[in-house]
C-alpha cells in the first residue's frame, strides 16, 4: 500500500488535489483508493495536511497517514513549519514545489527529494486565481513523474472530471508542464 501525505496551506487546494489524485489512482487501476483531509481551523494560509492511500486490495484503514512513502509539499515555506520528512518511510520520496536547489531546502541529506518549479508550470498554463498561481493540480503531474503510481493520462482524466471544460484544459496543461519539468 502506498501512503501519500500532502502539506499545503489553507486555500492552496491540497484537499481538492488529494481527491483528484485518488480519482487518478482509481483510473490507473488501483482497486483500493482512499483520500482523507485533516481539517483543523479552516483558515487561509494555515498549514494543513491531507492524505491519499492506494493499494491493490480494498483499504479499510482510516486513521491518519503517519508513515508515508510519498510526501507532497505545495510550498517550500512549509518545510520548516510542517516537517514534511516526519515519519517518511526509508526509500520514500518528498516532492517539493520550489525553485531552490535541493541543498538549500533544509531537508535531511539521506532523503530522496524531487523538486520542480510547479508554480512556474501553473503560471505558464494560466492557472491563476485572483492573482495567485494555483499549484494543486499542476503538482499532480510532478507526482505522476516522480512516483509512477499514476499515469499522466489518468491525472488528465481526473482533472477533466473535476472542473468545467475551460478551467479543466488549463489545469491539464499545468499538470503536463509540471510532469515535463519534474526530474524523477
Amino acid at each position: 500500500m502506498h501512503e501519500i501525505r500532502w502539506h499545503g496551506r489553507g486555500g492552496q487546494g491540497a484537499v481538492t488535489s488529494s481527491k483528484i489524485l485518488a480519482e487518478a489512482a482509481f483510473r490507473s487501476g488501483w482497486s483500493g483508493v482512499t483520500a482523507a483531509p485533516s481539517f483543523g481551523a479552516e483558515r487561509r494560509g494555515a498549514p494543513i495536511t491531507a492524505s491519499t492511500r492506494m493499494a491493490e486490495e480494498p483499504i479499510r484503514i482510516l486513521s491518519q497517514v503517519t508513515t508515508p512513502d510519498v510526501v507532497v509539499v505545495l510550498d517550500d515555506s512549509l518545510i520548516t513549519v510542517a516537517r514534511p520528512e516526519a515519519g517518511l518511510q526509508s526509500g520514500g520520496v518528498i516532492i517539493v514545489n520550489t525553485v531552490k536547489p535541493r541543498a538549500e531546502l533544509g531537508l535531511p541529506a539521506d532523503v530522496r527529494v524531487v523538486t520542480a518549479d510547479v508554480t512556474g508550470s501553473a503560471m505558464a498554463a494560466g492557472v491563476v486565481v485572483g492573482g495567485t498561481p494555483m499549484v494543486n493540480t499542476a503538482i499532480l503531474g510532478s507526482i505522476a513523474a516522480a512516483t509512477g503510481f499514476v499515469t499522466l493520462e489518468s491525472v488528465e482524466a481526473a482533472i477533466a472530471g473535476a472542473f468545467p471544460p475551460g478551467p479543466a484544459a488549463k489545469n491539464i496543461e499545468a499538470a503536463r508542464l509540471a510532469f515535463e519539468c519534474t526530474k524523477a
Partner: protein
Amino acid sequence: MPTQKTIAATGNTVVAEAMRQCAPDMMAAYPITPQTTIVEEFAGFVAKGRVHTEYITVESEHSAMSACVGASAAGARVMTATSSQGLALMWEELHIASGMRLPIVMANANRALSAPINIHCDHSDIMGARDTGWITLFAETAQEAYDNTIMAIRIAEHPDVLLPTMSCLDGFITTHSIDRVCIMDDETVTGFVGQYTPKNALLDIENPVTHGAFAGLGGPFFEFKKSQREAIERSRAVIKDVGAEFSELSGRPFGMVETWGMEDADVAIVVIGSTAGNVRHVARQMRESGIKAGVVKIRCFRPFPYAELAAALSGVKAVAVMDRAESFGAEGGPLFLEVRSALYDATERIPVIDYIYGLGGSDVRLELIETVLNDLSEIAAGAQAPTGLVYLGSR
C-alpha cells in the same frame, strides 16, 4: 443482479446521491460541518431539476426538524441531515417525530459536542439521542452509508414500523474521505424504495385526523409510548427482511451485527462505525502472531441486537468494547452498557472491558488497537481485568 457503477466519492456525496435516488417529497435542512456537503449537493440536484423535492432552507436545525415533522405529518416522504450541535438543537422534535410515528429519514454525520469546541468525529451526538425513539443505523464506510440511507427509507416507512430512522456516518472519517463506492442505477433504487403511502396523512381531507394532541392525565400517553416500544421491537424483523432484500440486489451482506473471525475467536472487540476497519486490520495481523482475535461490528444500534450480539460473543474469553462517546458517571460508555447487559444471561461470565477512544476525532492509530488485543489476550490467559474503563491513548 442489477448493474452498478463503481465511483470514487466521499461518504457525503454518496449519501446525497442515495437521497436523490430515494426522491423525497420534501427536505428541510440547515448546514453544519461535517454534514454540510450532503444538503449542499442535494440542493444542487434540486436546482438542476435532477430531483423534484420541495427544498426548504430554514434558520436553524430546530426549524429544520419542525418543518420535517410538519411535512411528514402532512403525508410527504421526508429526508434531512444534520450533525453534532445541530442534532442537539433538534432534541425536542426528535421525540415529536418518533411520538407522532413519522418515518423521517435523517443522515447524521457523527461529531463531538462542545465544549471545548471541536468539529471532529465522535459519537456523543448520536449517543445523546439514543433514547429519542429513532431507529439508528451506523456505517463503517461510504458504501455502508449509501446502502443504509436507502434501506432506512424502507425500514422507516414499513407499515409495521412507522418510526423515524437515522443513518449515521463518522464525521470527516467517512463523510469526507474518498472511497470506492458501488452505486445502483436509479430504476433499481426507485423500485426498491417504492412509492410512499402515508397512513393518517393530515392532507387526506376525506379522513381527518389529529396528530400529537394533548394526552395528559387519564389520556393515552402511556399507551402511545408502549406502542412505540412495540413498533421498534417489530422493526427487528423488518430490518432483517429489508437487509436481506437489499443484499439480493446489491450483492453486499447486511446484518444488525456483522462478525469477522468469530468462528474460533478467543478474544473479541465490539466496535461501531469507521473504526471497525482499523480493528479488523489489526485483528488479522494479530492472528499471525497467534492471538485468535475476532471483531463484532454493530450496524444497528436501535433497536439494539442483544440476541445476535450474545450469540456472536458466546465462547470468547474476554471482550473489549470500543466506545466513542462518554456517559459520565455511568459504569462505562453507552455501547459498553448495552454489550454487558446483552451478556448478562450468558451461562459463562465473560470479562468485558470498556475502552473510551477517539473523542473529538482523536486519531485511532493501529498500535492503540494492538494494545487492546494484547490486554485481552492476557486477560483470556488469566490476568486480572482492569477495574473501570480505559481511556485509550490519552495523554
